[in-house]
């Protein structure tokens, strides 16, 4: 169970996972809830891609996921319909074409957060690959 507590007096957003404190955020300083969602998407995409590459014999040094919202109008949350995602992968034992193919398939078929958000959003994917 995840509990989110908002304390407006202290400008604090707290979360608990199964009764244990997991995160405290100052709303004015920390990431906004929408940015947290995008962080979740990026984290899930990176971890899923890492697993997909490793299982295929890839030797992954690093994966960087950059997320952008090209269609944001006046920074309003309800206008996010498209996400530009850029992967920068440093890995060995894998070709650039393969990395791109695996990145696409892992995002579409395996990444839990991307699958949930896909009902409302389109992804545009770009993969940069550097041989490790």
């Amino acid at each position, binding site marked *: 169970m995840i509990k989110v507590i908002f304390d407006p007096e202290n400008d604090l957003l707290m979360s608990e996972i199964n009764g244990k404190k997991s995160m405290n955020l100052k709303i004015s300083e920390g990431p906004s809830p929408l940015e947290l969602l995008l962080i979740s998407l990026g*984290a899930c995409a990176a971890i899923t891609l890492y*697993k997909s590459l490793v*299982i*295929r014999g890839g030797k992954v040094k690093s994966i960087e996921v950059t997320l952008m919202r090209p269609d944001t109008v006046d920074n309003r949350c309800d206008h996010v319909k498209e996400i530009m995602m850029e992967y920068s992968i440093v890995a060995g034992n894998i070709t650039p074409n393969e990395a791109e193919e695996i990145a696409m398939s892992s995002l579409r078929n395996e990444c*839990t957060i991307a699958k949930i958000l896909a009902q409302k959003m389109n992804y545009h994917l770009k993969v940069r690959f550097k041989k490790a």
Partner: protein
Amino acid sequence: MLLKGWYSQNGWKTKLILMNMSNQPSRLRLKLFEGENGRVLVTIHMKLKPKEMRFYELGRIKRIAGKAGVILIESEELIACACHLINLEDEMKVIDYKLARVDMQSSCC
């Protein structure tokens, strides 16, 4: 789907028996590694017709002569693959096995 096994061209000769179990054509990518954690020595691309069965002698690939290691086969459709290894010194020594399916671990969540 992803299949994993072991080949050896080091004192052995290896033959793969690939079977497309589906009614759709399937593109395959075979990767032969040096040892268990080494580099990729060869990547082979092939396409199997629906229900096609193909024999593939690894002896035809010069780059893996004298080598042994992991073989990974990635396929769009459901396939099965068996591996037939024959010892070069004693041809009565034979190993036959079916490549194991590797399942993708669950995502991060």
